[in-house]
């Protein structure tokens, strides 16, 4: 975040002594704002002023880390309120809840289930990022369950409990993985802050609403813990929406430092539709971490998908390299299909081709990551571009026949493509789900 000349000027001695080599303090402030001078060039600026300015120039939402190693999550430092203004940068963490009060067999079953909460989407494996271990009061039990969960899944933990005493053994048990401590409240702030500080952990600060949070976060910072995550008491859709919006806006627009941290939302709903829809709300509306009590596969699949969509860069669709792809082990007599380099399109087609069990070549045309019809409408998927791809991908050296299949949606390209490429063109089904049937009886014409 750049500071303006006015922001800087406020902190200068305003004596116009010229020791910096500039006629006035204001002129000096302008130079600093334009990065033509350094604050250190003024010998009279106080240490307090320097600290204040360093604070003001820090990002409005602090970058906060949870966990350690490969699976750690970096949250915060977001820059916009609406994804179209730039993009949302750091996908929120999805957490599922593990009650430490469960018996061993139930804990084992949960952990085995959590391992399945990972889904293949557009060529990426996406799933949960954290497990929230919820204490039932017995500190030793919580520590044992936390250790087991950490070892079984290798994911960072959120340790949830009402007091530092209840959580201290668990924190100690998984200290190296930098668990997130949940939660400091007005009642237990000092002890929770001490626990977080001692173990170098990030801390969740919890209060009724954003206003009440403003009273707690400065205290935590003063006591030495700066890596904070905010949570309000909101549980309804309306409450979540208001609080999340107030926090993000206050931090970004009003530069409200006390709320300049990522947030956490807990969704307690058991009903799968309520859980999934509230998760999508929290994901779209700025949550840093979403903790779900309903850990069923369909709910997580929807949440993972919503997160992928909301965090996709609006200027740059997810795309793959344009080249010749092999599904299975195709030979010189295998079918050749053509499609676009939009990841969603390619992986949908690839999935259906795999399902057919017919080894197949797929020529992928560079359409700048757009779908078949979008690319056709914008002339990126045209007879010319497909013919060029047939040449450049080298498919002509790989197969003996000269027959290529078009998506049904762009059947109109057939005649022109035959002219341009010299290949014979088959029109495939509109939806790639029709491919298995077609491929099983395929022959070059």
């Amino acid at each position, binding site marked *: 975040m750049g500071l303006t000349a006015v922001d800087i000027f406020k902190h200068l001695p305003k004596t116009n002594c010229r020791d910096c080599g500039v006629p006035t303090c204001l002129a000096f402030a302008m130079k600093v704002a334009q990065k033509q001078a350094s604050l250190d060039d003024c010998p009279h600026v106080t240490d307090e002023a320097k600290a204040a300015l360093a604070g003001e120039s820090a990002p409005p939402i602090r970058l906060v880390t949870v966990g350690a190693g490969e699976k750690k999550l970096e949250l915060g430092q977001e820059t916009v309120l609406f994804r179209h203004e730039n993009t949302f940068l750091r996908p929120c963490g999805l957490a599922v809840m593990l009650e430490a009060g469960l018996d061993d067999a139930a804990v084992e079953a949960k952990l085995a289930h959590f391992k399945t909460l990972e889904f293949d989407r557009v060529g990426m494996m996406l799933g949960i990022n954290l497990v929230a271990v919820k204490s039932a009061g017995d500190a030793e039990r919580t520590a044992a369950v936390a250790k087991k969960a950490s070892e079984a899944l290798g994911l960072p933990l959120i340790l949830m409990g009402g007091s530092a005493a209840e959580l201290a053994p668990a924190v100690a048990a998984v200290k190296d993985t930098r668990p997130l401590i949940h939660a400091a409240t007005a009642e237990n702030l000092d002890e929770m802050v001490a626990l977080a500080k001692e173990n170098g952990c990030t801390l969740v600060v919890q209060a009724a609403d954003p206003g009440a949070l403003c009273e707690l976060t400065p205290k935590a910072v003063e006591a030495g813990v700066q890596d904070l995550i905010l949570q309000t008491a909101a549980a309804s859709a309306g409450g979540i929406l208001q609080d999340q919006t107030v926090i993000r806006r206050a931090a970004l627009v009003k530069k409200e430092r006390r709320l300049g941290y990522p947030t956490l939302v807990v969704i307690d709903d058991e009903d799968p539709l309520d859980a999934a829809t509230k998760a999508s709300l929290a994901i779209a509306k700025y949550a840093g971490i979403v903790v779900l009590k309903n850990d069923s*596969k369909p709910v997580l699949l929807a949440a993972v998908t919503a997160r992928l969509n909301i965090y996709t860069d609006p200027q740059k669709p997810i795309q793959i390299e344009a080249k010749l792809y092999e599904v299975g082990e195709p030979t010189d007599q295998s079918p050749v299909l053509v499609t676009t380099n939009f990841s969603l399109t390619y992986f949908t087609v690839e999935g259906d081709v795999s399902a057919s069990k017919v080894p197949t070549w797929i020529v992928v045309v560079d359409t700048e990551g757009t779908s078949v019809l979008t690319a056709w409408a914008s002339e990126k998927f045209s007879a010319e571009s497909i013919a060029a791809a047939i040449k450049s991908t080298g498919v002509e050296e790989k197969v003996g026949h000269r027959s290529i299949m078009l998506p049904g949606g762009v059947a109109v390209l057939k005649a022109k493509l035959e002219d341009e490429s010299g290949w014979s063109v088959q029109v495939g089904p509109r939806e790639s789900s029709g491919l298995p049937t077609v491929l099983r009886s395929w022959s070059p014409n």
Partner: protein
Amino acid sequence: MALEMPTERWSGKLNTVTIGAGTRTSVVTVGGETTLPFLKFEGETPNPPVVAMEVLDVPLADIPPALAEPFGDVVNDPAAWARKCVDEFGAEMICLRFAGANPEGADKSPDECKAVLQSVLQAVGVPLIIWGCGNFEKDNNLIPVLSQAAAGERCLLGSAVQDNYKTIAACSLADGHLVIGEAPLDIQIQKQVNILLTDMGVSTENIVMYQTTGGLGYGVEYAYSIMERTRLAALSGDKMMSMPMLAVVGSECWKTKEARLSEDVAPEWGDAAVRGPIWEATTANLFLHGGADILVMWHPQAVAQVKRTISELTGEGL
């Protein structure tokens, strides 16, 4: 120091649109918001969004068990289907889509379609959305017949696009209906469609915008962002972008694999009986937060969920 609430002062306000008149026993009013969706600290949402359920003039073909089960036989009879949506599932409007008129499909005649429309008008008292088949030539013959058959009922006619809006606009003027102005996820085109419609004499209070939709995992983010941008434009005072928005949710979602595949085929995705409804409800919820005022939906469980959310978002307290 107390928190200073980061409230925006907007100069604009969404148009208020009322659908239904004549023999309708209820009317639907949407629009009038003075805030981004549902921000109580900022402004008013005088008319909560509504759910319309979709009914086709031809039976739903090839649908997964999770979607077929709640409807049973009624999908063979548009009037019974519509009645079930209203009486049992709480639909506030019926969106009657004449998919069967498409020349590439059943190619039903305008008269056949008119009979279906009349049976549905008889069967339910809620306001209607009447949507053509999407083939320009056919719709230009079909919509006038349907429009006239429902004259005075203040139906919402779909849809006027940049390259085909004149017939629909003329029908709305002649028979007292409203128009859906459609654009392919493009703000400039949407505005152009609105201008073309108003130039023909359709008042801004008689237009609802439809910017096309993508389901969860299949372009939902494009529609979500277009809706957000449109709402921001309206609140900033752009009168040509201040119409309430409609989103088609059911048909978009139920064509995705995630909604359709059985658990046998996709065990990694879990219970298909809830997966489809979740897909639809989640998509609808995202559109609510984008700024949609009318959601066109299919599955009763998703409908119930979305209605719960709307009352949570607009009811008393938080």
